């Protein structure tokens, strides 16, 4: 194993369960590079749900709570609420986050709670064999859309921005350098950070939708189809060409949830000490 692996992986759980050439493994390494640069492995608390990408954190030497499909975000909130100094990171997938978990994404973003949600987007439900996901391209013939997908794609970045996230980025496994930088920014960002990663799934998306199960072909597809564009007004044009905008889309600040809670608790206790109403 490479030096980063020796330093940070939970070796007794190897090998990675990911398929050959899967983007998830590349994301494990990119994340660990960011964590190594920051030196923050001991502060991490992770949660995950169900799906291929949910296994990303399991292979790292971190405390991780991997639970139900779509419910990683409320678990992250429970962890953050009980010790705000934790750096809470959730790896989720396009199904886990945008379908069953969509409600929780909305409210975590709305609260601007200081957690990082990394949504690994392979545009399909891979773990269960290749069913359509909210992120699957129109027309795709998946296991559950054998006659072609007639549903419009849901854009997690637009949803996160609309719901109130204060950091939103999308990169891909063909953009590891900016991805590592975005990981570091997200971990240090005070507020809700949503980081989407377009990631290859050679076995499902590749074979069924793109015409090839070769990892090289699939990573090349991502490289060719991801276009750096940080101005949202240009997104529709890029999407009309069948491409995916990537970049650091949003970085702003507004009151963070746990800080507001602590401020409120202090105020309430002071009022009570002064004999105010409960």
């Amino acid at each position, binding site marked *: 194993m490479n030096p980063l692996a020796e330093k940070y992986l939970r070796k007794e759980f190897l090998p990675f369960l990911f398929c050959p050439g899967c983007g998830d493994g590349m994301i494990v390494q990119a994340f660990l590079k960011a964590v190594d640069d920051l030196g923050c492995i001991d502060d991490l608390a992770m949660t995950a749900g169900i799906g291929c990408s949910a296994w990303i954190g399991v292979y790292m030497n971190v405390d991780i709570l991997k639970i139900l499909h779509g419910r990683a975000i409320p678990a*992250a909130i*429970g962890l953050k*609420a009980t010790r705000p100094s934790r750096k809470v990171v959730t790896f989720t997938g396009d199904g886990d986050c945008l379908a069953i978990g969509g409600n929780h994404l909305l409210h975590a973003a709305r609260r601007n709670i200081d957690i990082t949600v990394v949504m690994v987007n392979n545009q399909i439900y891979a773990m269960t064999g290749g069913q359509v996901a909210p992120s699957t391209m129109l027309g795709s013939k998946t296991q559950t859309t054998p006659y072609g997908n007639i549903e419009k794609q849901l854009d997690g970045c637009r949803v996160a921005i609309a719901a109130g996230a204060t950091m939103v980025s999308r990169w891909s496994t063909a953009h590891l350098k900016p991805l590592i930088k975005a990981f570091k920014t997200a971990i240090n960002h005070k507020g809700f950070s949503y980081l989407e990663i377009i990631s290859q799934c050679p076995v499902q998306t590749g074979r069924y939708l793109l015409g090839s199960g070769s990892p090289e072909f699939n990573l090349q597809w991502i490289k060719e189809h991801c276009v750096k564009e940080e101005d949202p007004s240009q997104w529709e044009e890029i999407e009309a060409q069948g491409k995916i905008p990537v970049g650091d889309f949003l970085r702003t600040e507004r009151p963070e949830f746990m800080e507001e809670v602590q401020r409120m608790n202090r105020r309430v206790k002071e009022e009570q000490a002064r004999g105010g109403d409960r």
Partner: protein
Amino acid sequence: MKKGRIKVMMGNEACGEAALLAGCRFYGGYPITPATEILEFMSRRLPLVDGLCLQMEDEIAALVAVVGASWGGTKAMTATSGPGFCLMQEAIGMAVAVEAPCVIINVMRGGPASGQSTSTAQGDFYQARYGSNGDYSLIVLCPSTAQEMFDHTIKAFNLSERFRIPVIILSDEVVGHIREKVFLPDADQLTLVERKAPTVPREEFIPFQPDTDGVPFMPAFNTGYKCPVISQAKSQSGNRGNAREAAENIRRIVSKIEDHMDEFAEVQVYGDEKAETAFVTFGSVCRAARSAVDMGRENGLALRSVEVKTVWPFPDDLVRRALAGAGRVVVAEMNLGMMQREIERVVRRPEIRIELFSKIGGLYPQPQEFLRFLEE
């Protein structure tokens, strides 16, 4: 004589008071009649003790956040009613699977589905035990008074920490909303149980290896143990297990509770312990049954009421003992016959028919109806 004070309060409030005294510092909830008072109480009181009460976006998020808080090292609780309890079932199984101590209150109301939000019922008797998927076990307590709402909540937190399980308090609308005297002991009068922290350093720590009592040691996150906690069937290392390891772990999480029932199982008998006729009740129905027993005594009729306080795991031995010598057994419950099935299973005397006095539709059984039932 314990030190404390007496206050008149609603059952739901008594539950909140007990939670705070037990050390609960995180509450994740969602409004639902007739449990909403618990959420509102915690939202007022938790900030005053540096805790956090979060109204989540749905009941699923509420219980999942509670489990996250539990692994974060904090005692945590949620409360709901039937419809929300249904939503929580997956997460209840998950709390069992990841062995997270937590307390869940279900203040039952008329069902099925939206049912009758402001009326009482006892239709979740089986759901409390079997609502989630797969094989598992947990503990369910049934209060019948505001005082028991308090006492059972303390007990629930202690049992959840002792066994590392979700403990369910199966209340109902009558008990949740009734206002009566509750004795609140001073904090120093209570014996509280805490989960066991690991006694070995990280290199030697095996996350799901049990102690001699079948319960593993539980590190809080970010205390250096780097614990892999997954909800899949697992081996002791925390990784996905093979068939043998998975079976072993499932048996252990059941036996860790069911082998130790003498620590918590509770059945009370009110009235004449040797009476020929016995009622069997749980929850708010215990109250009416007691009045029926008293009425019966005034009319020269000897009656006993067997009150099951810990309905799951069902206390077979205690119930059999409480019903010893009874020639007639009437299970009184506000459903179409659920505890009745358990009594039939437990009392294997063919000469006795286990009768059912059933009251549904949100109507509470009156004491005189018990006596009328006996005559018919």
